[in-house]
């Protein structure tokens, strides 16, 4: 088993764990952390792809950097929403489906 394959597999496992967390976790912060875990899993797969060939590929690195920025943005937005909700100072209302 090559190194990059190992990285890929780990990334996928991380993705799976994160997915479980996103679905199963109750608290919004946990969900966000789980999402970020998933993200890291994906980034690992990408990084592994960078080493798939003979030369280290810069493109996936750039993708990961962009991905991180986007993830930061998304996480920030979610946190902001969660905080806004908390600010409204009431439990999250039951949504009508």
């Amino acid at each position, binding site marked *: 088993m090559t190194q990059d*394959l190992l990285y*890929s*597999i780990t990334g*996928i*496992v991380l*993705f*799976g764990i994160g*997915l*479980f967390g*996103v*679905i*199963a*976790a*109750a*608290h*919004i912060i*946990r*969900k966000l952390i789980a999402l970020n875990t998933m993200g890291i899993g994906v980034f690992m797969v990408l990084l592994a*792809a*960078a080493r*798939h*060939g*003979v*030369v*280290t*590929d*810069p*493109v996936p*690195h*750039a*993708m990961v*950097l*962009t991905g*991180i*920025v*986007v993830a*930061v*943005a*998304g996480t*920030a*937005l979610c*946190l*902001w929403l*969660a*905080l*806004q*909700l*908390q*600010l409204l*100072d009431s*439990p*999250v209302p039951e*949504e009508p*489906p």
Partner: protein
Amino acid sequence: MFLKLETRETGSDVGLSTLACFLLGVVITTLSAALIIAVIVSDKAAPELASLAMQNLNTSGVENPVTAVLLNFRSYDTLLEIAVLLIVAVAVLPDQCFAGKTSLPAKRFLSRNVKHQVNPVLAGLLKWLVPLALLVGGYLLWIGAYAPGGAFQAGAVIAGAGVALSLAGQHDFTWQTTSVRITLSLGLLVFIVVAAINNLITGTTLQYPVSYAGLFILIIEVAATISIAAILLLLFVCLKAIAEPAREGDTQ
């Protein structure tokens, strides 16, 4: 799946019953396994994009291949990435920021919080830390052309300086001013302007003239660094501003 969204601490960590958790685990494990198997089975050598990147590196204006990809080969993605950041920044901006002239007289971006008690140790530390962080940021920005580093890293470090200032509590940040908004959008604006100028020069959007490629990349990176730093700082400060009263309200 997201039918219940908790924003407060509850007794349990998990929003699902044990059985559901188990089933979910089984399903996700299976899925992951299937993915892994798919990866292993079709594991083949891909055609090399890396070599292509390396071949073109000398005409990209920078020596760091990652920066070359980010700001030359795939600069479009980076442009959009800054736009993504801007979206969140605008979404998070506090409302009064836009109240315009009727609101408080325009303050400076950074002002001393007179009410807050001055901790001399903290103040001393900040005096060293903030300039250092700015310096490091500048370095990262410059080194990005040759080695790992670049606008995002630099911006993050500079924002870190602001975070430190904010956490120390001795300074207030004001987001009401037009200059702040210019700062926030500077990265995107400069990027687009550069793209347009290049369009006039070379006839293709985002295609730099080879000899000036390094210069244009630097211009973009400087602007992007400023914007990224400002946006990250904004995110932190605004979330902190909301979180504090929210947490107080929560504990009452």
